[in-house]
């Protein structure tokens, strides 16, 4: 039965990056996406490409993330070349602020463990004096920070737009309002159904975040993901004052200032609450007291896709070869490797060896 080479279920940051990468590698790809009101973790992403401290204690994840960081400039360049869209990628380096010596010591430990694991990333600890040299307006409560020139930030929404546009302009088929309710494997192909409509392909990737959990068992995969709520608060546009990416505040290319994010277990509740917004604002004023007069124009939340250990899943189904699962909560940081490595690999029906340890059977080990 003829059909596509690859079906990608889920048009978020993960699915769109994979779809584009596979298409560029020459595969005939269909990207199936939901409608206007969907969980869309991409919309809640703070926009950091955050490498310092990533994967400490889990070398494969550290190295995978650092690889992603190194490939980001290539991704950004290719996207602007393909679409003309400036996705707001900037690599000014990132600061993680500390409000106590204990916090600072924790960062020192992270630096040490990163080096011990052979992480190829420069991270330095800045004391208050060094920090105020970079940020004269710094609040009194900040005692220092860890800084890495590798950290960057981007507009997650422009990134998603650019990936989808690049995909379509490269000849990929994008179907929106196509919420897949079942997958039927048959011999050498898979058919994804949305009501009466269907799409068939030789291989299929489930990258639909929280929506994938119920589809996974249909192709012999396991994606035990749970929602974790993150709230973000954003101000009106401001003239540029903060060039660095930071763990709690960043200024977008348009000038708006994002304050984030929270980590909450609220099931599938995408609401916002004042207490959390207040906490985010409190942190912001501790770092930059003079941010107090800025107007907050919106607060929103979305649901991160969390596996039991917070690490990604990259896996091929053993019962149904050709069916793959990909999920992570760092859809922005990993967008580069998803587009430039995972996508092309899946077009050829494989996954790269760097991700071989990210299978879901590790969760069974934990459970037993």
């Amino acid at each position: 039965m003829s059909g596509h080479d690859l079906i990608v279920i889920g048009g978020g940051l993960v699915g769109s990056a994979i779809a584009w990468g596979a298409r560029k590698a020459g595969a005939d790809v269909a990207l199936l996406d939901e409608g206007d009101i969907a969980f869309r973790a991409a919309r809640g992403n703070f926009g950091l490409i955050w490498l310092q401290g990533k994967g400490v204690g889990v070398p494969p994840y550290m190295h995978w993330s650092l690889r992603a960081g190194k490939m980001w400039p290539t991704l950004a360049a290719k996207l602007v070349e393909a679409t003309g869209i400036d996705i707001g990628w900037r690599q000014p380096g990132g600061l993680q602020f500390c409000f106590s010596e204990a916090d600072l010591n924790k960062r020192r430990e992270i630096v040490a463990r990163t080096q011990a694991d052979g992480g190829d990333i420069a991270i330095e600890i800045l004391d208050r004096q060094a920090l105020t040299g970079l940020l004269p307006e710094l609040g009194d409560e900040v005692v220092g920070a860890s800084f890495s020139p590798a950290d960057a930030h981007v507009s997650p929404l422009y990134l998603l737009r650019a990936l989808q546009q690049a995909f379509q302009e490269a000849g990929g088929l994008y179907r929106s309002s196509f919420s897949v309710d079942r997958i039927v494997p048959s011999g050498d192909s898979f058919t994804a159904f949305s009501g009466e409509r269907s799409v068939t392909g030789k291989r299929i990737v489930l990258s639909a975040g929280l929506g994938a959990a119920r589809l996974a068992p249909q192709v012999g995969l396991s994606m035990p993901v749970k929602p974790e709520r993150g709230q973000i608060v954003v101000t009106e546009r401001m003239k540029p004052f903060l060039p660095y990416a930071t763990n709690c505040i960043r200024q977008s290319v348009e000038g708006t200032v994002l304050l984030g994010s929270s980590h909450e277990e609220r099931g599938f509740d995408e609401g916002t609450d004042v207490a959390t917004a207040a906490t985010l604002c409190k942190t912001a004023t501790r770092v930059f007291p003079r941010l107090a007069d800025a107007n907050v124009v919106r607060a929103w939340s979305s649901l991160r896709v969390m596996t039991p250990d917070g690490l990604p899943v990259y896996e091929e189904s053993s019962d149904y070869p050709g069916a793959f699962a990909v999920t992570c909560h760092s859809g922005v940081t990993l967008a580069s490797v998803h587009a430039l490595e995972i996508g092309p690999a899946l077009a050829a029906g494989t996954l790269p060896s760097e991700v071989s340890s990210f299978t879901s059977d590790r969760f069974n080990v934990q459970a037993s």
Partner: protein
Amino acid sequence: MFKRVDAASVREDEEHVLTFEGRAISFRPGDSVAAALLAAGIADLRDSAVDGKPRAPFCMMGICFECLVQVDGKQNQQACLTQAKPGMTVRRQQGARVFG
């Protein structure tokens, strides 16, 4: 480009004066800052934070957020929702808010 319809019966007094970009503007009790500026023939109140073009009050009821001005040092105040007060210092909002 506005005139007071009851100019004959209502006098302006010396007390109700604010400044706009350093210029003294008379107003009446009950005027919003936007009304006071329109009455004084001020054409535009700010430059857009997006394309830098001049903007002026549009809806006069707090919905459009076009009438943003600086009032007594506070940036991005909606002039149509701010009561004009004697001695107020009002300035144009030149594009996006300046940090601090």
